[in-house]
Structure formats: structure tokens, C-alpha cells
């Protein structure tokens, strides 16, 4: 079979090189027909060229082309991947800088909090427009969203269209990597049960070691690792992009450093018995007590703040990464950690390992409302993708996940209707934005909408 894969936003320096490399490394995708579409057609052509070069270097039949007409790009596709950012860094600057004027400093600002809400307001109509086009031109395709805010955008498609949709995020792969470093267990032998929303997925059960192995209670081992930090080197040094802070002397990162850089999630684990799975810089946006101005917005917890400069540096790195991929021989065989290729492989071949996925809640997370998009472990096969487990997020952590999903639902509604009052309602319900004085929540919402009005046609009065 030769699947047809359309990437909307296919000119992305971040996504396309990664996705194309992963496709090359996935046997079932080496014959794929990949179609790149982008508002900036030149960028799509640039990435198509890279894809063709990859196929040539690997001598595989994968075909890659840039298609300027969106309908033509979508038609007959089996999979549609969306990777986009409305306004890019130019709009995101406001998501960070406007709230900062009000005293809210967001480490990332792309999922919840004022920045995440503003990003959703401009992205929801765009993802809906794409999904409508998929409904028309490729109605049986699986729509795979990798764009942020992932929960809100995936929810929009599920709520407003008949398109089958899944959101994919690599944060839990990051957790697998961190636990693999801590326990010296291969990543694929780390399995968990998860419930939550994107960037706040909560591990409710943890298994280490091969299936049926002795360490079915990974939480017990994690507890003892926290009580008695293990010595010994890390099997791999953390890539610089992870922005770890070093707390020990010496040149190399140790397991002590590892634990220090997981401080927030481990604190929550010790206290509440479940493990939030995303990186701490995401988690704290859901639990604003960790990013309080009084304590330097989380510096004591080693929370890394990207800031617009950090995001800009990341995007420059993406361009460099592209150039390196273009100018070196061969194609990296290192998996990127992204999940798109793995999910496609499972669906095409009919089997594959369990993966973290974002799907509408049909009961897999019992403590979150029905229909909202939840992050959970899923499996793919020829009939599609579905949740594997049913779980409840207990206590406080479950309550905070619930609060986030309530605000997200209001955000989607506000974005679809272009309703300022609903946007204010979403901010009031958001734990981070809702901490401001009442009048300031309203001013902040208005200021964000006004600052980004170029990308918010639905809010024009």
C-alpha cells in the first residue's frame, strides 16, 4: 500500500524535516506519497526538495511534492497532518509580553494561561477551516493535529466536524526518556496509564521493564529513587534544547541533576501519588502556585522560561537543523521522538506499540467531562486509533486538570463565536490568568485581543 499523506503547513522548518526523516525510517511509509501544502508555497517547495533528497539518499520510492492548491493537496489523502502557527513568532510575542505587563510570566505560553488562550483564539478558526476542507476533499482521512494549543485545536475539529481527529504530542516520550535515564531501562520498556489534557497528562500507573516483568509498580521504584537518589552516569547526556539546569559540580549531568530538573512533577508525585508527565515548564502553567511572582516565577523549582527570545532561538535552531539535514550525507536514523510516523505505521500495518494520543473523551478519563479532548495512551490499527485504558485522575491533580478543560472549552467557544465576553470568561476560568485582580483579567483579555487583532478577524467589531 502506498499511503497519501498531506502536510498542511508543510513548509515548517520544525516539522517537515523531522516528519520526513521519520517517514524514511518507517518501513511502511517508504512508499508513501507525501504532499506538502503551505500558505508560503516556496517553503513547501523547499521541504519537498529535502524530502526528495532524503528518498534519493535512502533509495526508497517515497514521493514528495509541494502542491499550491489546498483542495488538490488534500484530495484522496489518507492522512492529513496540520502543523501551523498563526502569525508565528510575530503574534506569539504578544502572548508572552502582554501578560507579562500584568505580572504573569509564562514559561512557554502555548497551551493554557493567557498566552495559550490568545493562541487558541487565532488558531481555532484556522484549524476549523482546514478540517472543513478535509471534510470536503478527503472525508475519510485521519486528521492529525500537532499544532498548539493541541487540546483546544483538536477539540475544535472533533466538536465542529465529522472528521476523525487525533492530536499528537511528544511530551510523554520526553518523560519516557527521563525515566529511562533514571532507571537505566530502555524507553520502550516504560509503559504508563495516562489521563489528562495536553501538556498536563497525568501518569496514574507506571510499569518498568519488559511486559510481565517484575517492576510492574514503577511508582514504588520512583519513590525510592527520590528518597535515595541513585548514583552513576546517565546513559545519555541531555540535549541542550532541553534547557536543563546543572546543580552538581562537574561537567556531566548526573542523576541528581536529572531529579532536580523534574522538581515540580516529583513534588506533585510525592504529595499526590500521581505523576504529571509533561515537562515542568508546561505543568506549572496549570498549577500557578509554582510560578508566583513572589518566588521569581518558579526559578526555585528550576523552571525554564523560554521567553520570546528562547522561542526565536528555537526557530533559528530549526532552520539550522534543516540546513544540516540538507547539507550532510544520508538521513539520520535517530528517531525524532515525534509520534506521527509511529501512529501511521500502526494504522497501516494494523499493529504497533501503545502511544500517547489526544482524543475526545469517550470515558477513558473518568474525571474529565465527556467529549473534551483528553491525553491518554492509545493504540492504532487498520480501523483507526482509540484509547487503551480507562483511568481516573485522583484528587487535587484531577481537579486542576478539570479546571483547565473547563477554560479550554470556553476558549474554543469564544474563538468560534468571536465573542469577547466568552474570551473573558475563559480567562476568568483559567487558573493562571484568573489569579489577576478581576478588572485586570478583563483588561488583559482586551489588551491581548487588541494586540493580536491582525490575526483575529472574528473579533473585529
Amino acid at each position, binding site marked *: 500500500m502506498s499511503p497519501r499523506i498531506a502536510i498542511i503547513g508543510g513548509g515548517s522548518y520544525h516539522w517537515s524535516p523531522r516528519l520526513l526523516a521519520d517517514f524514511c525510517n518507517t518501513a511502511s511509509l517508504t512508499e508513501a506519497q507525501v504532499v506538502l501544502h503551505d500558505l508560503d508555497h516556496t517553503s513547501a517547495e523547499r521541504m519537498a526538495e529535502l524530502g526528495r533528497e532524503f528518498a534519493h539518499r535512502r533509495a526508497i520510492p517515497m514521493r514528495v511534492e509541494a502542491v499550491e492548491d489546498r483542495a488538490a493537496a488534500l484530495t484522496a489523502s489518507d492522512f492529513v497532518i496540520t502543523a501551523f502557527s498563526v502569525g508565528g513568532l510575530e503574534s506569539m510575542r504578544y502572548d508572552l509580553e502582554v501578560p507579562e505587563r500584568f505580572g504573569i510570566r509564562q514559561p512557554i505560553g502555548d497551551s493554557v494561561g493567557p498566552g495559550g488562550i490568545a493562541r487558541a483564539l487565532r488558531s481555532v478558526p484556522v484549524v476549523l477551516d482546514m478540517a472543513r476542507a478535509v471534510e470536503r476533499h478527503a472525508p475519510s482521512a485521519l486528521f492529525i493535529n500537532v499544532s498548539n494549543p493541541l487540546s483546544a485545536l483538536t477539540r475544535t475539529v472533533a466538536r465542529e466536524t465529522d472528521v476523525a481527529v487525533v492530536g499528537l504530542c511528544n511530551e510523554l516520550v520526553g518523560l519516557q526518556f527521563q525515566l529511562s535515564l533514571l532507571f537505566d531501562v530502555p524507553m520502550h520498556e516504560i509503559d504508563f496509564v495516562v489521563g489528562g489534557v495536553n501538556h498536563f497528562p497525568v501518569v496514574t500507573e507506571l510499569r518498568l521493564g519488559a511486559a510481565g516483568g517484575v517492576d510492574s509498580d514503577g511508582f514504588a521504584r520512583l519513590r525510592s529513587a527520590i528518597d535515595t537518589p541513585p548514583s552513576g552516569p546517565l546513559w545519555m547526556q541531555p540535549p541542550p534544547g532541553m534547557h536543563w539546569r546543572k546543580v552538581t559540580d562537574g561537567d556531566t549531568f548526573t542523576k541528581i541533576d536529572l531529579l532536580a530538573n523534574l522538581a515540580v512533577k516529583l513534588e506533585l508525585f510525592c504529595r499526590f501519588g500521581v505523576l504529571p508527565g509533561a515537562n515542568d515548564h508546561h505543568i506549572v502553567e496549570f498549577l500557578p502556585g509554582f510560578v508566583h511572582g513572589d518566588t521569581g516565577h518558579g526559578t526555585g523549582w528550576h523552571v525554564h522560561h523560554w521567553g520570546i527570545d528562547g522561542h526565536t532561538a528555537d526557530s533559528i535552531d530549526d532552520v539550522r537543523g534543516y540546513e544540516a539535514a540538507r547539507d550532510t550525507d544520508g538521513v539520520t536514523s535517530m528517531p525524532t521522538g515525534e509520534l506521527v510516523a509511529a501512529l501511521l505505521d500502526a494504522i497501516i500495518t494494523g499493529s504497533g506499540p501503545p502511544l500517547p494520543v489526544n482524543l475526545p473523551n469517550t470515558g477513558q478519563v473518568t474525571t474529565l467531562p465527556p467529549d473534551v479532548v483528553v491525553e491518554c495512551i492509545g493504540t492504532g490499527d487498520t480501523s483507526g486509533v482509540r484509547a487503551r485504558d480507562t483511568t481516573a485522575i485522583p484528587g487535587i491533580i484531577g481537579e486542576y486538570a478539570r479546571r483547565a478543560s473547563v477554560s479550554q472549552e470556553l476558549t474554543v467557544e469564544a474563538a468560534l463565536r468571536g465573542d469577547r465576553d466568552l474570551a473573558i470568561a475563559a480567562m476568568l476560568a483559567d487558573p493562571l490568568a*484568573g*489569579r489577576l485582580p478581576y478588572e485586570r483579567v478583563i483588561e488583559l483579555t482586551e489588551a491581548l485581543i487588541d494586540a493580536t487583532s491582525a490575526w483575529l478577524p472574528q473579533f473585529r467589531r
Partner: protein
Amino acid sequence: MAPRICFIGGGSYQWTPKLILDIADTRSLHDAEIVIEDIDPEPIPAMVDFVHHVAKLRGIGLRATGTTEQRSALEGADYVVVCISTGALESMQHDIEVPDRYGLRQSVGDTVGPGGILRGLRNIPVLVAIARDMEIVCPDAWLLNLTNPMTTLTRAVQKATSITAIGLCHEVTITQYTLAMLLGCDMRAIDLSVAGVNHLPLITRLDIAGDDGLERLAALIDDEDALAAPLVIPGITGHEAVSDGGAFTVGSLLEANRVKLELFRRFGVLPAAGDRHLVEFFPGFLTEESGWGARWGVELTSMDTRRAWLAHYMREFDGLRSASELPRTPSGEMVAALIDSRLRDRPRHFPLNIANHGQVPDLPEGAIVESMVCVDASGARGRDVAPVPVVLADYLRRVSASQEKVVEAALTGERDVVFEAMLLDPLASRIDYDELGRMTDEMLAATARWLPQFA
């Protein structure tokens, strides 16, 4: 048959006198037997004398006895009115002062927020002990709880014992009174639906003799010509009786309710408690930037003010004891009317706090909610099903989740669960995570003598 009504904490100068007057003015209760119980023997003789003074002036058979023995006081009771305060102002001082040092100022401090949580921890074991005694000596009596924090206390009794417990609070009645003044209608012409928790009840429907009262209110608050119209506010129940009366206008009354009207403007339902209570549920109104609520017309109730109130209640009681004529104005409290409705099987609707069986669909089943409740001989049950707008529903759920943890912590004595309650509470959780842990420990330590279960 005349009921036996036991007052636990019956030495309360704030509550007992006005409830006794209401009872004396309720025909079916003229021959009631009153038991004044208090752990403090000092005010008991005066309260018992007061009951007999009232009976004599009214020419009715009302009579009273006094005791400091809880179990014997409860013996044979039909109704148990609870108006206690564990540690009184001495303990409450810490509820206010410790959070203050952490940058959390509370306008009341008796419901939610750090103060409400600690007050719950102190009072819950006392309430549960009362209900346990009731299980033994008067298992069919109703516990009528007037004590704060009303929601968690009533919930604890319901969770831990088999006693029927109902929470009674005058805030909705006061709002009804305010609405009658603003809209120029008879209070009795008002019917409303309420959904929420105590001190955050939301009026979702307001009917004034067939008119949509919320629509009328919306029109009034935007009508600049109406603002100068005068109002005469007689002294009413609760703290308002203590504050200056003076000449009010529509405008000044609206000014005194800015928080609830702002929330009404934004969400279309009307919070029906005093603004000083509301801001503790919506801490965005209670920030340093807004002068701790001053910008919204909210004053922080200081410990000095509370002491002044107490002195006022004592003076007022002294006046009543020696008065040869007693007021006949209903106090606005619901104890006497509720008992009368049950006794005579005369159905009436009251805003009461009972377990949720669907009347507040946005809150969990079994949580104690404030809603319109029908009381008659067959009991007390919710009358309406009242959903609320999503943001307000979520604020309710947040406090409700915290309140459930307060009950759990108070019953188990688990310090970690206290922290969880704080972390879920919108007001307490505004501060830094580590600071919140320190504040929790400090509050528990400061009030340890009233918290035996945490020893």
C-alpha cells in the same frame, strides 16, 4: 404537641435572643420548651430569664431550662439549633492574622479561604459530637445549623452521622430585601430559584408577581435617572442592623452591592450574599491592587469590628431583657418558620442548605448546596433544578472540591489533606506553592489547642 427546642451554644448574644422572639411570635411554638445549653455557664441564667420575660410579656406558655451538659440538654429534643464558635474570637484572630502575614487579607474569614478552612477544622468535630449525642438521645430531631462555615459543618454531620442536618443562613433573605427596596416591590411578591453553596448562592430566576425580576434589575442598573431616588432602609437582620442606617438612595444601595451587580452584568445571574462574602470566592476582587476590595466597596471586617459587634449584641440583649415592650418585626431568620412549616404541615419555601439531589446540577450529588427547599410535615426537599453559567459553575465546583477536603481533613486529622483543601481553594491558592504549605502549618500550629484531632 409543643416541640422541645434545644439551643447548643444557646448563650449566643447574636442568635438566641432574636430566635426566641421569632419563636414567641409563631403561634404553633407558643408553648415550646426551650433548652439553653452552653459550655460557658455565665450567660445561661440570663437567657433562661429572657425566655420567661418574653413568655410573660406575650402571655404565652413558652418556658426554658438551662444546662452546660450537652447530652442531657439534647434528651428528647425535637429540634437542635446549633450556634457555636469553637474558640470564638480568640481562635478566629489567627484565621485572620496568619494569612495576613502571607499577603492574604480576608474580608470575613469564616467561610472559604484559609480562615474558613481552619474554622471548619475546629468546628466540624464539635458539630459531629453533637450529632453523635443526638443519635443516642434524640435520633429523629433535626439539627438546624446556624454555625459557620455552614457548608462544611452541615456536610460533616451528614457524612459522619445519621442525623438530619439543615443549614440556615439569612444572606438570600437579605438580598431579597435589597431587591424589594431596589425594585419597589413587596418582599412577599418575590419568588426565586437559587443554586450554589452557602455565602455563594446564585439567583438564577427572579419572579416578581409574574414579571422577570432579573430583567427589571438589569434595566434599573443602567437607568441613570433612577439612581437619585430615595430609599429608607429600616434596620434589618445581621450585621446591617449594626451599621449606620441613614438615608439611602437607589444609587447608594447599588454602590453597596457592586460586586454582585458586576457578576450579574457579566453572567446574568445574581449572587445573593453580601459582597464581603462573595469576594472570598472570587479573589480577583480582593487584591492589594483594589485596596483589598475597597475599590469594590468591600470593607475588611476587622477583629475590632467583630468585638464591637459582640458588644453591640450584648447591649441589645440587655435592652431586650429589661424592655416592657418587645419588637414584633420578624428577624429574617428562618428557624421558627421552618419548624412551624414542619409542625403544621404548612409547606413553605426557604433558601436552605441540604444535600444535593439534583437541585444544583453543576455540583456533585451529596454535596451540601444552598437552594430553594420546600419544608412540610414530610420533610425538607429541593424544589428547583437550577443550572448556572459555566464560569460560575466552575467557581462553585472549585470551592466545593476544597470543602470536601476540609471535611475529610477535619474528620481524619490529616495535615496533608488540609494542604490539599488550601490548594483547591481559590483564595488560599493565590499565593506561592511553598508559602501556602508554610502558611498551612503556621495556622495549624497557632490554633492547635482547638484542633485535638491534629495533635
